């Protein structure tokens, strides 16, 4: 044994082996300390390159609502996003259609509801159903950040979900985009606040402050998109403005600015792709900075 050791020391590669050993020790010490401090505060979901786009359709629409949108995005931008559709039933059971391709870092996930009726009471229920679907997704796919999209009442479900169920210590919502979300239902005048708007404004502190939110409103003839008044979409500012990192209201007019058509509107698709699907470069930068941005409201 000693003989071998002496031979080894005479080996002219001994210094390389030694330096290899030293490098490993040098890297080992800080990583040991890091592990000890990391595991105690471990965020659980780590290391996952997946950042899905989670979408909620509006009332009376099923999980198939965004099939065309996803198809258009894939075709127009030459991308290959996979699509998973979930329908949550009234008894909390979930049926799945479609699947997420294993290497897909930006899949689309649509969560629809068996009971997709309108009304504040139902939105509360839908938010609870969405929460159970979201928890399933979280434990199954282990993503640590995602983008949110909601059409019409889908945006209300998102807001209610963010205020009542979402826990931002393990998971980040980067960008949210909603289209024609009626924060004040059919009410044109924002001084007449509905019960729901009051409730949503009251609980706004629970919405993660790091969120960037784009709200799209459509108008035909200056006042509404045919169903939702501009004032009702605009009322979202009482919830988000001044609380989250960025709040932007975009008004769409012209061809296909009608409430239900908007998700097929060319301008909308550009906005959707830019802010929600993103092109890797923008996104990696964003998620990096979002990690470091301190809370504006301590």
């Amino acid at each position: 044994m000693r003989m071998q050791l002496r031979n080894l020391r005479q080996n002219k590669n001994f210094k390389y082996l030694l330096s290899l050993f030293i490098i490993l020790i040098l890297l080992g010490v800080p990583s040991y300390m890091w592990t000890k401090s990391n595991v105690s505060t471990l965020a659980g979901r780590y290391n996952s390159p997946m950042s899905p786009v989670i979408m909620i359709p509006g009332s009376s629409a099923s999980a198939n609502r965004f099939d065309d949108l996803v198809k258009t995005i894939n075709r127009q931008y030459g991308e290959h996003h996979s699509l998973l559709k979930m329908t949550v039933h009234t008894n909390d059971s979930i049926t799945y259609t479609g699947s997420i391709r294993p290497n897909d870092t930006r899949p689309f996930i649509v969560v629809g509801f068996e009971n997709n009726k309108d009304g504040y009471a139902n939105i509360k229920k839908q938010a609870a159903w969405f929460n159970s679907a979201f928890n399933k997704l979280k434990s199954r796919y282990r993503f640590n950040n995602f983008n949110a999209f909601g059409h019409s009442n889908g945006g209300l479900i998102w807001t209610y979900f963010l205020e009542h169920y979402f826990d931002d210590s393990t998971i980040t919502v980067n960008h949210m985009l909603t289209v024609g979300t009626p924060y004040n239902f059919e009410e044109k005048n924002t001084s007449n606040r509905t019960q729901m708007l009051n409730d949503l404004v009251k609980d706004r502190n629970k919405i993660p402050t790091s969120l960037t939110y784009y709200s799209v409103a459509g108008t035909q003839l200056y006042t509404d998109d045919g169903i939702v008044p501009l004032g009702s979409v605009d009322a979202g500012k009482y919830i988000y403005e001044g609380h989250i990192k960025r709040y932007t209201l975009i008004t769409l007019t012209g061809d296909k600015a009608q409430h239900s058509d908007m998700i097929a509107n060319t301008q909308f698709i550009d906005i959707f792709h830019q802010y929600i699907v993103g092109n890797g470069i923008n996104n990696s930068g964003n998620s990096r900075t979002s990690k470091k941005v301190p809370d504006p409201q301590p």
Partner: protein
Amino acid sequence: MAAFFFEGYNFLEYHLKRIAGVFMKVQFNNKLEERLVRGTLKVQKLLIYRIIQRTLLLIFPFALFGSFIKIIQTIVLGKEGFLTDVFPTFNNDYIYRLIENIANALYNLSLGWVSVIAIFGAAKYTAKYYHRDDQLAGITAISSLLIMDYAYSKVQPFSFHPNILGMRGLLFAIVSGMIIGWIFKKFSRPAPNLEKGQPTTGILERTFISLKPIIISLIIAIIFSTLINVTYYSEAPGNFINALSTEYTSSNNWTQLGKTLIFSIYTLIMSFFGWSGTYSALGMEKMDVLSTINLNYALQKHTAWNAPNPFTSSTLYHAFATFGGTGSILGLIIAILIVSKDKDFQTVARWAMIPSVFNISSGVITGIPVLFNVIFLIPFLLAPLANMLMAAIAITLHLMPPSVYPVPVGTPGPLIAFIGTNGSWQALGFSILAIIISVYIYIPFVKMAAKVKLLDNPGIEEGEV
């Protein structure tokens, strides 16, 4: 086509006679070693094999340089990188972006496009063997690969699918390169100035001799590119296997162990041929459901001991079988540094040592080369499997906890189990044991490779290839 592959045999007898003298000098320890060395020599005589070896040596400097850049990219700049997590980062965003851009550019045009270099080499050497215009064959091959890899995107007018250009497209590139070389043989006559060895009067004449194969190659490439979505099909088998490995779960520990071993073998074999397998050596991005269950268990109980799924890819394969990159390459490097007297091997090992610490093995696998190398296939499979079995036994006997905690990308191989178990010293001990095992497995094969090299060195230019 078959004739093409075996034409190298013509030289077999001649070579065997020529090297008979050298054979006298080489001593074999046992029958098995002798048989293996002789078998390798036979395989090395195959034209296809010689072309592959030469091509790999051609891409080695780029792969080595790229692997150093890759360290910076994944470990220092990466979002979840090892050093980013362990050490504090720079806070200046502008400098960070600048470094990131430089690193991206350097990486994409070194290790990121080795397949382009490989197809050039493969076509050039094939054409040269048949005394055709090798320069033009190589350049045609580059164009063909880029055509096949062209991304028909409306967003960016001139772009390529990056996956096929890197290490993953190596096999595809080499095979395509040889086919293009063969097209040059079929459809053109020998280039005149190559035959006579003097500057020709008509460059134009040379060009026209090769015009037919150039056009044919490019047309075949465009047909291929239009009909088949290369990126999709190159990933399809992997995706299928991935889906299997992540979706199908079993509660029985022993079927789990079997499953992990099978997917590891698949990964190792695919990596050996320059493709990619289920498990990536850099990071564990494709964590399966079982690992998630383990992590949740550990976070609840504040311990990794008795985690419900002891034999997952992260507890066995990632923690114990990827030291230095796929195939326990760190063991090979240490083995070379200890026993090899071959100058080339030593140079490669010294240079590739640092990237290999961070599990980036592209330098060694193209420089030795390990890829497609008959001798190294055995330890390339055996060393990781032995380490995994050792780890499985140690976990079963409760000698160490399974690694369940997430590990940053690019964590040095021997530290993965240590960090993954939240600093269990037993796990570190077994990691060191795993290095020793893999070094011992690699040592006899390093010696054999040196003997093969002494008898017949494919790296030396001999004219015919």
